[in-house]
Every structure is written in C-alpha cells, then in structure tokens.
C-alpha cells in the first residue's frame, strides 16, 4: 500500500506551551525517516501526537486523505523503559496481540491470522525465539518483537521512539536490517534518534526538529552542517518569551 502522510500546521502543546510548533511536512510510504534534534526538541512529542496519545492544538494529520484517527494503520513503539518485560507473554503472544485490533473482542484466530503472525516473526527475524518470554530476549530482540507485533497489526505507519537506545553494534545492525525490510515492503517508518554519526546509514530521509521544523529531505542533502548547527546551536524554540 503506497501512501502519503500529510502533516499540516501541526502544533502540540504541554499546558499551553507549544513543544512542536506549526509543522508542515509530507512523508511518503516506503521510506525510513530519522527524526533528529537536540533533547527537548519535540521528537517524542511529535511521535505521541501522531499516535494520538497527545491532543493536537492546531493543524491536522492525514494518511491518503483520511484522518489518521483510524487507529489500526498506525503503530507506536514506546521507549524501552516504559515496558513491563516481566509480563507473562512470549514473543509469539506479543505478535498475536497485534491481531486483537483486527479481530475485535470475539473473532477467533483463523489460518490467515496464524500466517500473518508467522510472517511477522520472520520479518523481525525472531522465528527461532517465538516461544521465549520477553525478558529472556536481548535488548535488540525485544525491540524487534515490537516490530513483529506492529507487522501483525498490518500497520502502515510505524512510530519508533529511540529504538536504538542502549543497543550495541550487532544489535543495532540487526534492528536496522529489520526496519529496512519493513521499508522495502512499503511501510513508512518514523524513527526518533539522537546519534548523528550513524544516521546516514540508517535513514533515507531525515526530519530535523528543534521545536519547529529545521529541515526535511533526503539524508545526503539534508544532514549537512548548516542544518545541524541551526538545530543544535540555537536555543530550542518554545514559543515562549524568556
């Protein structure tokens, strides 16, 4: 499914103080977009607003012309710290949870659901770990387990909040491979990230924020020192006078 996520004049505020300010940008399916910017630039705020977890103050967000409130299209992977890894569930169980929003309260699991869950485990490269409890996975595998769940949900837009945080080199590479597989199958991934060094390898596009949009475009053209300076050396724009 190809599509465009259109963000128009988006402002998101905490207690009436804007954290993301009048953002206008269009993102296309089949791309893996790095959301860059200093701490407090509004990266998590933007992801949460797109996911519907924070109220939007101005503007609108639509995917292929429809408002994205149609929740099933969008999936949000939270930062690692907020997840209860002791929850009694296996990797397969987590992927199956992704089907709940498709199946509703009652509809039983059918052959198609089983097939999609199997596919999800394959995309996340976790088939061999399907019966492991979440805590018995490494950090990178845990992150990929959430990708499997999102795939099972048949989501089109993946919102990932700092998924590379705390991953070592091998785990990062395996995770990058997984999100690139998702991109190549036509999904739109928006990934908040704080390391500028590896951004070039990970993302085909970058969106640089510091409260407002600094720059958006293909990584090679956009991740240049002029934009980085603008994002990181000035104080963060909060919309409030000091």
């Amino acid at each position: 499914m190809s599509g465009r996520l259109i963000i128009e004049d988006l402002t998101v505020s905490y207690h009436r103080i804007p954290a993301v300010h009048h953002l206008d940008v269009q993102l296309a399916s089949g791309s893996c977009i790095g959301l860059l910017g200093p701490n407090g630039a509004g990266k998590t705020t933007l992801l949460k607003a797109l996911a519907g977890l924070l109220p939007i103050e101005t503007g609108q967000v639509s995917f292929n012309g429809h408002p994205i409130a149609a929740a099933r299209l969008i999936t949000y992977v939270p930062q690692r710290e907020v997840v209860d890894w002791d929850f009694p569930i296996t990797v397969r169980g987590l992927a199956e949870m992704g089907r709940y929003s498709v199946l509703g309260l009652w509809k039983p699991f059918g052959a198609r659901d089983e097939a999609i869950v199997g596919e999800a485990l394959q995309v996340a490269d976790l088939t061999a770990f399907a019966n492991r409890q979440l805590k018995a996975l490494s950090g990178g595998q845990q992150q990929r387990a959430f990708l499997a769940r999102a795939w099972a949900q048949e989501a089109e837009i993946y919102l990932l909040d700092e998924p590379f945080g705390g991953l070592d080199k091998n785990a990062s590479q395996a995770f990058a491979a997984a999100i690139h597989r998702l991109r190549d199958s036509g999904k739109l991934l928006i990934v908040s990230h704080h390391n500028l060094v590896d951004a070039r390898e990970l993302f085909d596009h970058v969106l640089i924020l510091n409260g407002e949009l600094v720059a958006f475009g293909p990584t090679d053209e956009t991740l240049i020192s002029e934009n980085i300076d603008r994002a990181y050396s000035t104080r963060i724009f909060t919309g409030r006078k000091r």
Partner: protein
Amino acid sequence: MSWLAGPFEYEFMRRALLACVLIGFTNGFLGAYVVLRRLALVADALSHSMLPGLALAAMLIGLNPGGLLLGGLFAAIFVALGGHVIASSSRVKDETAVAALYIFAFAMGIALIKYARVKISLEHFLFGNVLGIADTDLLTSYCISVVTLLSLVALQRPLLLALFEASVARTQGIRVGLLLGLLVILIVLAMVSSLQAVGVLLSLGLLVLPAATIYLLCDSYAAMSWGGGVIGAVSAIAGLQISFWANIPSGPAIILVLGTLFLGAYLFGPKYGITSRWLRKRHMHEESLKRWQ
C-alpha cells in the same frame, strides 16, 4: 477416601463448599489482572475501606446482605475515586492518597460499628465465617461470579493490551481509563462476595495468592487467570476440609493453604523458583570453568 466426603453430610458444609468453589474461582481468575496491573496494595486498601460502608448499612438497615453489598461497594468506590481525585489535584501520589483515605475509612468503620442497631461483632467482618453462609449470601456470590467472569472473558483482549502497555493500547483506540475503572469495580465486587467467607482482612489473599503462585510457574497470562481460578477453588475446598478436621476457623485455613502453595512455587518452581535458579547458576559456573581450562 470416605473421610473426604464426611464433612459434607452436613447441610451447612455443603453450602460452604459451594461458596468456596464460587468465591475461590472468581477471585483467583480476577487475581491475574490484579497481579499484572500491580494492584495488590490498592486492592488491600479497598478491602479495608469497605468497613465503614458495612457498618453504616448495618446501622441503617440491619444485617441485610443486599444492604451490606451496597454499603461496602460504595465505601470502597468512594475511597478509590477520592484517592484518584486527591492524587491528580495535588502533589501527593496515588498510593499515598489511597492509603491516607483507606486507613481513615477503616478507623471510621471501627468507630461506627459500635453504633450498629443489631449487635454485630467486629471479628465477624474482619475474619468472616464460611460455615455461617446464608442462601442470600450464596445468591450474591453467584451473581457476582457470573458478572465478573463474563466481563473478564468478554474484555480479555483489550484488558491485556491495556495492562501490558497502556500507551500502545491507547493508540489502538482502547479506553484504558474506563477499563481500569471497571477492573477496580470488579475487585470491590469480588471482595464483597468473599467477605462472608474470609472477612475484610483476609479477602486480599483469595484475590492475590492464586495468580501470584502461577506467575512464578509459567509465562502465559491465560494460565494465570484460568489456573488462578482453579487453584483458588481447590485451595478453598482444601482449606474447608482442614478447618473441619483441625477445628480452626475456615478463613485462615483457606489462606494458609494458598500461602503454602505460593511459598512452594517461590522455593521450588521449575523456572522462576529460587532453588532451581540456584542449581542452574552452579551448573553454568562449572561450564564456564571447563571452557577456561
């Protein structure tokens, strides 16, 4: 084995048996959600906060089970909502706000019982007596069991999503606040139904111990609720037998059985028990030694 059936020649024991199965299974099933949401202490607070409602009901309309049910239910919901309001409108956090209110309510309950029209002993409310269970109590328990189990089975999927990761559940359009509110109401209902059997102070055991035991044994949430229900029911029956033969009160006997199972799982559980973990560590150590040699 005829001694097993012996106690049930008495009518009051057969009634107690039925009550034990109903209350044990319902509380054990619901307990899975309490343990997963880490609501054990909130549930404890709610059990104590029922007391002023029970006392008020006893004062106004006597020992009528319907009245007691409503009194306990309202008092507990009042404390739960009050705690939520205080926590969200001041710097005091949730558990402190609930603790402050429930202990206040508990003290008020003890004071109010003195003024009850009918003479009731505080001990009866605090520790219960499954052997004295009346038909109306049984009917109440039956209705509460049906409502609780049907709600939990029907809402299993959204509940699990909400308990596992609330923010992800919200992105899928699930009303997390509403579900958790419903969960608190179900907890209060289950406690009201176990009141007659084990009392205010021990009702928490029926709710938390079965699921906590299974949590130490396996990695399946489905097993936690269904298994918790089975363990709850079987332990309640076993406790009833022990109370009959050893001549100890039924409430403590039931909780002692459940507590023993929990400690057993903690000590000897094959995967998460400390004994097996300790044995496994030594094994790993030898393995790594060999690699070095």
